């Protein structure tokens, strides 16, 4: 499974990349340090169905384009596979309003409080697979 990690913090990107690779479920891991770069990457990959990331782990508080701005742009993007891309917010915020706002977006399947760990990631993965099975039916 291809995963896209979007976070402006280099420390988190290092930790999360290492953790995700250790779990051994990733085919390809993309890392972007802001929302604009992530959108650019998705546009670039959209012609190739197999390379499109299926899970986006998205930070909220980022300069230039924050997580919610990214989600707004993703919703507006002309993309055939959009319903097959699942977003898990990955944030340090414990403010319930951030969580509520996140779940208002149809792509958001999970809200993970940092730090990411194996248990949290597999919970998200489980939710994604359940959703994929429903889509197949």
């Amino acid at each position: 499974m291809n995963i896209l990690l979007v976070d402006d913090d280099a420390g988190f990107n290092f930790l999360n990349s290492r953790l995700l690779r250790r779990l051994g479920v990733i085919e390809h891991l993309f890392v972007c340090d802001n929302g604009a770069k992530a959108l650019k990457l998705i546009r670039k990959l959209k012609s190739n169905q197999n390379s499109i990331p299926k899970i986006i782990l998205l930070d909220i508080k980022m300069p230039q384009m924050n997580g919610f701005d990214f989600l707004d742009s993703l919703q507006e993007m002309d993309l055939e596979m959009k319903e097959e891309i699942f977003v898990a917010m990955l944030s340090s915020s414990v403010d319930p309003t951030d969580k509520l706002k996140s779940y208002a977006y149809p792509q958001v399947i999970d809200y993970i409080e940092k730090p990411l760990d194996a248990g949290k990631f597999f919970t998200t993965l489980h939710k994604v697979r359940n959703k994929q099975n429903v889509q197949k039916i």
Partner: protein
Amino acid sequence: MNHEVTDHLKEGFQIISKDWRYVYLNDAVVVHSRFKREELIGRKMVDVYPGIEKTKMFEVLEHCMENHLSANFENEFEYPDGLKLWFELRVQPYDDGLIILSIDITSRKNNEVLRSGYVKELESLIDYTSHHIRQPVTKILGIKGYAESGELSREDLLKLCEILNKSILDLDHVTRNLTERMLEVKAKTQAVD
């Protein structure tokens, strides 16, 4: 009308004639007006308070007068010397004029403004805590979790130390900042008290 009851009400009570002259004012309205009773009775509102005819309050009064309607509203009244007080006004048609009941709500309004200011400060502190303080804390927790989850190479170890070092410095910075901001809020609160 027998004014014995209305004269000493805490609520302001005034009667305005159809041609906008003060017909009756109880003691509370006289205090609110900052004039003497004899300086008001028989005079037109627009002569006592020049420019009042351009205010939103007067617009409502005119509407009530012309259409024999009631209205309840809150109004910030600006006196000629610039003093501003908030009043809750209840307007009722009476014969060809108006009865206006008024209560000074300045203190309540000021409290509302203060409370709204505190809520904004609090929201800003929640946002700061939730994002800026939690950030280095969760990173330190992440380092701990990653270190416990398997073997670490020397390269990993060096990188983790680097991240840990940065997180500690960030935490130092944001907690100092938070303390400064909380002291500012405390100073503002004390200034109000």
